């Protein structure tokens, strides 16, 4: 394929941080978890106890997938890591596939590259090679880390290889989505929707214990059973054939479509703007509406599904001797924090979009009119904070509806809403942090993702990883307390709200005093 190697070199040189960074991040996660599990379950008796309690209190099978060989260190590791690997590994695969194909095409860089002597399929193949390299690196680094930590060699190789293969399956899905959609933004929305459907389907299958694991790639990671005496072969075949088929279809689509186009030709729009679209706020609302509605639908679905599973979990917990109310509260405090983290993620993504509007030159262009920077900035901040509130309300309502539907008892209707809204100050603080970063420079917004990433770790894994108290306090969600299991920390909530207001005001001042990036 003419030009393939040159284009691989271009991909590697333009985004080494992406290729290496994600692999290192996953490896770091595996390493820290593996070392803490080796310490916590050093004795066989401790592992047997873990396996015994896990059967009784399967409170989170929906979140972490099925556990196998729980009397071994590796089995515990694979099970405990399921919380995060089922989320981040597929998302990394999807992201990199889009990043190295459609995003490059979207920015017009591909037009320059393909003007040279390169094969029609070379850019996409080279981009996906770069994406696949991350999967390979993830496997290699994780395997090395596990073997160094004295985990059994065959199991380590199988588990680490499984992570890479799992990532590769979603790289294939991302490649297919990226070839079909006309721009990177639509690709991301569709790709995340694909992940969400498969994640939720797996959650239902695992919580209900249904015998349908062959159906969904999300189940295959656990089905590898890397630390079993005789690990099955079929998940590997399933992953390999799924990846091969998606890559093949993506290749066929790439070979048959126009460059810069998707499968569906763009429709003409209205010759005039609707009359209500006349202020910066309304303009920004219209521009972000599609993505925001996507977030509302996705997170609501997520919240409802987990709310619905609460009943199943409390039945299992009852076997372990918990009362139903305690069990529901404990489960809910986990799920509502997930709601809050999703709302925070949405507002950071919106802030990144606002920052991209500036770097694209559109903010400078719009502000050549008699619209003050303060007004534009106010509109953006209002938009982001409003959507995070809307998302919290929607997810809270859906969690409650899910719980009520699961138990068939309308008495649970108000629990989820109140508990979710308790996290509003924390979500606003994270949101405003993104806004402040943007007011310094648009490129800095991505740093705010650390709050969400760390928030997930503290919410789901703090005890297992033995995270010290001061480090837990780096997550604003932790300050609120685990509502509804614990009481709502009013002073903390008040302080965070006040802090968010002060930071928002500081951001306005900072934005008024700096250069616009483009325009």
């Amino acid at each position, binding site marked *: 394929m003419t030009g393939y190697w040159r284009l691989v070199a271009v991909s590697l040189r333009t985004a080494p941080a992406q290729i290496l960074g994600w692999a290192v991040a996953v490896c770091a996660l595996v390493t820290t978890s593996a070392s803490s599990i080796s310490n916590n379950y050093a004795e066989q008796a401790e592992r047997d106890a873990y396996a015994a309690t896990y059967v009784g209190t399967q409170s989170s099978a929906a979140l972490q997938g099925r556990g196998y060989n729980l009397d071994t260190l590796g089995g515990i590791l694979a099970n405990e890591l399921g919380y995060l690997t089922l989320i981040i590994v597929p998302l990394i695969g999807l992201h990199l596939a889009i990043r190295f194909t459609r995003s490059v095409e979207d920015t017009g860089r591909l037009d320059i590259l393909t003007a040279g002597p390169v094969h029609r399929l070379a850019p996409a193949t080279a981009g996906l090679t770069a994406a696949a390299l991350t999967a390979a690196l993830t496997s290699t680094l994780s395997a090395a880390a596990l073997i160094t930590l004295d985990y059994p060699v065959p199991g380590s190789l199988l588990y680490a290889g499984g992570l890479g293969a799992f990532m590769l399956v979603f790289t294939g899905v991302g490649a297919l989505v990226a070839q079909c959609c006309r721009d990177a933004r639509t690709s991301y929305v569709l790709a995340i929707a694909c992940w969400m459907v498969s994640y939720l389907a797996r959650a239902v299958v695992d919580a209900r214990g249904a015998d349908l694991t062959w159906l969904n790639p999300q189940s295959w990671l656990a089905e590898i059973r890397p630390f079993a005496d005789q690990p099955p072969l079929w998940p590997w075949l399933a992953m390999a054939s799924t990846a091969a088929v998606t890559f093949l279809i993506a290749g066929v689509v790439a070979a048959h479509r126009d460059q810069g186009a998707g499968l569906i030709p763009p429709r003409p729009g209205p010759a005039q703007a609707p009359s209500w679209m006349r202020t910066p706020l309304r303009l920004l609302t219209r521009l972000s509406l599609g993505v925001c509605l996507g977030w509302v639908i996705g997170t609501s679905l997520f919240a409802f599904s987990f709310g619905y599973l609460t009943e199943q979990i409390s039945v299992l917990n009852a076997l372990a001797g918990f009362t139903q109310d305690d069990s529901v509260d404990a489960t809910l405090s986990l799920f509502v924090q997930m709601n809050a983290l999703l709302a925070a993620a949405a507002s950071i993504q919106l802030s990144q979009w606002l920052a991209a509007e500036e770097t694209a030159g559109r903010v400078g262009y719009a502000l050549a*009119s008699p619209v003050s920077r303060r007004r534009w900035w106010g509109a953006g901040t209002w938009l982001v904070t409003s959507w995070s509130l809307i998302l919290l309300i929607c997810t809270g309502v859906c969690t409650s509806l899910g719980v009520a539907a699961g138990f068939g008892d309308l008495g649970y209707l108000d629990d989820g809403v109140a508990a979710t809204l308790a996290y509003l100050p924390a979500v606003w603080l994270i949101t405003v942090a993104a806004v402040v970063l943007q007011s310094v420079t648009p490129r800095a917004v991505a740093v705010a993702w650390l709050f969400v990433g760390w928030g997930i770790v503290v919410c789901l894994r703090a005890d297992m990883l033995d995270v010290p108290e001061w480090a837990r306090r780096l997550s604003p969600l932790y300050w609120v307390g685990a509502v509804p299991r614990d009481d709502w920390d009013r002073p903390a909530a008040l302080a965070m709200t006040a802090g968010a207001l002060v930071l928002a005001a500081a951001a306005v001042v900072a934005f008024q005093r700096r250069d616009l990036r483009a*325009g």
Partner: protein
Amino acid sequence: MHAIEAEALCKRFGRTQALDGLDLAVRQGEVHGFLGPNGAGKSTTIRALLGQIRLDSGQATIFGLNCWKQSVQAHRRLTYVPGDVALWPGLSGGSCIDILGRLQGGNLDPKRRADLIERFELDPTKRTRTYSKGNRQKVALVAALSVDADLYLFDEPTSGLDPLMEHVFQQCVRELKADGRTVLLSSHILSEVEALCDRVSIVRGGRMVREGTLADLRSHTLTTVTAITGSPVPRLAGLDGVVDLTAEQQPDGVHTRFRVDHTDLASAVGQVAAADPTALTVEPPSLDELFLTNFRADTPVSQGTPA
């Protein structure tokens, strides 16, 4: 009061000194050409005028309003076409035109809008993502020209336009001028500048190197004189303004060639005429030459100016 007044503008981006003491004055009611090679600081100047960047030093005003502190008041009186037009993806071209007009305050005159869309042959229903560069430029031009402003800032407005549309643009600018509006036109297209501009400013390396009417600028460059005479022309080399003097003996006589600035033109040509030439040509500087002289980075700023 001038429409635009900028004094000693300085702006540094990291290691690059984008503006290095730039001055600019645009009188009300004139079409002012703003010229310079790539990276000379034209767009940076316009961004400073729009209050998008904060100057390290210097003072810029639009109709007496400070460009940084009173940018909103200043923007009420101006409209802008960026050099690289970025439109909102997902919206149609027509929607973008309306939104830009409404941000300017109030609805666009529908008749003027429709008229401009027709003149620029723009399809307002296409999504902005599917527009070519020229078509994006047309959207920005229609949006700006539909607005009733006192000052029009155009940053290379016709890049990507075909010659027909370029012609339409020139007509629109003439109409603005007839209406007493002020235009700042940053451009690389010399014919466009020559056709439209009353006065021009030439920038290079973040500084103003030349400013005046085109006739003024012409007078600062050198005229080329060639002559054939029976014997060598005496005393030419002694004249101050004569440069690049060559004299060659050929079968038909002595071929003399030199360049001279406009103050010494008469005496130099007088010397040649006294030597009884069989042929004499005097070539005024072409506009291209004028710009090449002023744009070329290695020519010192003072060259071509009478001593």
